[in-house]
């Protein structure tokens, strides 16, 4: 029953329907001890959506015979055949355009980028051909497409293979941008993305693929779906709000653990949706805690944290007891050497330190050389 209700909610059939409190309570209830890897979560979501709707098909490099560069599409070629699981040549601009054209006609493509770094070759199609079409055509040409793949830093892959694209795609009207953290997120958000009638950029994370999370029976149900545009409060707290998405949610939760030992109760918000951004959840949380730390892996300038900070200043300025703190990737191209790479990506200690600063519990750092 809950599955059916949830399907209605994420199909958008009932706008403004506030069943969220009950649903949130249900979501926190995890009776089942079943563990699922994010990789498996994505695979099962793809499988179920392809099974449910014949218009859904998958295309990308190595998605078929290779079983997926990161094995996300394992078994799908065998199950659905080469007409629905297409291995493409290494031509992002071409195959992304083909995917968007197929979506114009009414199919529901899932286009995989081996990493989102390669999406830059196709970004014209994502923005100009997909995101803007419904608007420019006054509703005639809708584009029910999903662009998915790993985003952000992996391990030791260097500058050209490590960028986070959340801020770039998140700034574009006409796109929806999602970024899962847990297996529940991965399943629910990918299903929602595939069912959504608009273009969705789905930012996964390579290092999360192998991580396991507990999943309830409800999450495993084939009709399970999460609403787009709603953040999740992963951990409730009262002293400081920490927002994060994707891999950084895990770091923020670890930071919250460490902070709790020092008497700081941090509320961790898993954004889940970069666009639309759940401003109301973020603001409600800041109005409760009065302090905010934004965490992201991407470059700091014009980043997701910058938008969250401004949103809070615009809507909840009077509630802030301290300046908003921003933790982001270093403002440099990603270096290769392990020690430099470590400095280029946020670590748990960085989040802890920033939270303490927001709570006036540490001496601010002097500018370093």
């Amino acid at each position: 029953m809950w599955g059916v209700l949830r399907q209605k909610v994420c199909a958008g059939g009932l706008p403004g329907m506030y069943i969220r409190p009950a649903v949130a309570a249900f979501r926190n209830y995890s009776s089942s001890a079943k563990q699922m890897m994010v990789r498996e979560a994505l695979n099962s979501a793809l499988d179920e959506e392809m099974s449910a709707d014949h218009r859904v098909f998958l295309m990308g490099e190595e998605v078929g015979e290779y079983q997926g560069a990161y094995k996300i599409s394992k078994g799908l070629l065998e199950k659905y055949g080469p007409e629905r699981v297409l291995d493409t040549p290494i031509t992002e601009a071409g195959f992304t355009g083909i995917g968007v054209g197929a979506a114009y006609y009414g199919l529901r493509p899932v286009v995989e980028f081996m990493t989102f770094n390669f999406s830059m070759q196709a970004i014209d199609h994502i923005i100009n051909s997909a995101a803007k079409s419904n608007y420019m055509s006054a509703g005639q040409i809708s584009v029910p497409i999903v662009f998915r793949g790993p985003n952000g830093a992996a391990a030791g892959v260097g500058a050209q293979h490590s960028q986070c694209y959340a801020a770039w795609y998140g700034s574009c009207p006409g796109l929806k941008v999602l970024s899962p953290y847990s297996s529940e997120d991965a399943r629910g958000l990918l299903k929602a993305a595939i069912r959504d009638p608009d273009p969705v950029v789905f930012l996964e994370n390579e290092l999360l693929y192998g991580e396991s999370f507990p999943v309830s029976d409800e999450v495993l149900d084939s009709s399970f779906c999460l609403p787009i545009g709603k953040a999740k409060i992963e951990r409730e707290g009262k002293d400081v709000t920490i927002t994060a998405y994707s891999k950084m949610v895990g770091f923020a939760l670890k930071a919250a653990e460490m902070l709790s030992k020092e008497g700081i109760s941090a509320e961790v918000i898993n954004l889940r949706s970069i666009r639309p951004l759940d401003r109301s959840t973020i603001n409600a949380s800041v109005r409760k805690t009065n302090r905010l730390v934004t965490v992201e892996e991407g470059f700091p300038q014009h980043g997701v944290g910058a938008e969250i900070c401004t949103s809070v200043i615009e809507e909840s300025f009077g509630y802030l007891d301290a300046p908003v703190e921003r933790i982001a990737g270093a403002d440099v191209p990603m270096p290769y050497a392990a020690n430099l790479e470590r400095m280029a990506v946020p670590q748990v200690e960085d989040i802890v330190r920033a939270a303490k600063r927001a709570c006036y519990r540490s001496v601010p750092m002097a500018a370093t050389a």
Partner: protein
Amino acid sequence: MAVSRLASSSSSSGSSLVKPISAALSFTSSLRRSLSSSADDSTTLTIETSLPFTSHNCDPPSRAVETSPKELMSFFREMALMRRMEIAADSLYKAKLIRGFCHLYDGQEAVAVGMEAAITKKDCIITAYRDHCTFLGRGGTLLEVFAELMGRQAGCSKGKGGSMHFYKKENGFYGGHGIVGAQIPLGCGLAFAQKYSKDETVTFASYGDGAANQGQLFEALNMAALWDLPAILVCENNHYGMGTAEWRAAKSPAYYKRGDYVPGLKVDGMDVLAVKQACKFAKEYALKNGPLILEMDTYRYHGHSMSDPGSTYRTRDEISGVRQERDPVERVRKLLTSHDIASEKELKDIEKEIRKAVDEAIAQAKESPMPEPSELFTNVYVKGYGVESFGADRKEVRARLP
């Protein structure tokens, strides 16, 4: 000049026999009228194209094109309408009623009209920004064109698209694209979906000689060939990519050969019958064998857009030369008069009707209001989930997306 044979139930032996008879008949107007009325519907005319087709990796279709008086009349009417529409748009732009970009198609009408004659509305067409006439050919109305150009509610995109973003999805017209070359992979995607859905239809993806050098064309063509997609790439070669002549932009301007393993056909794009024949051939080919390239040798009288006079990179003599020798509307006019299907006066009357229809549509379009301010926020998404969007000053203007 074109050689023609009048084929009817009483077959004539040789052209020398036919010509004197028809010449004699033409003296009697009443006889001619009865002849043309009976010739209107079922008579098949076979007319040769002005030039033979040049082919690459395939056998070209025959130069002899089957048509009928009715079809030729419709060609004239449609092309003359497109011509007048574009010229009217020129005036509207100069009167500042059309803003921004306006890329006119006059001179290239035969490509749009010939293509329509070979296909159905279930086949798809996608093109770039020189799309007004293609839109009209796909069943768009004059009102929708002028209103959209002027940014009014009655426009085909409700005023939110503009000149480069005309669409008519229900008639298989997928735009209208501003980014040079992007429409080619999109068109191959349409073809992919047609094949996936087993619709037995094809997609024509049109692009210019400027776009012919785009990498994404070759990326898409490779996939179309690999997957046998029913995609026809139509290079509307008007010999100038904005201000750059083809010989300055392309090492090899034989665009119909650029497909390498994909066959190609070079077509006189100013001859509507040649275009029809080529598109008919292409559709049959693509449904069985996958992609094909058609290169339409055509010409635009206007500059690249309304901000380009079009005479700094080519001579006025060249432009007037094409107008005199190869104009597509004039060619059909001559065919109609020489075959006694219509008189000069009848054709002039049709042109008068067209002028009137265009003027009326413009008047109607001027009456159409600009979009409501609330329209700023509509159609951003199909499903907005009640998410907030903002105007320039978000404390002043915000809306919930439906």
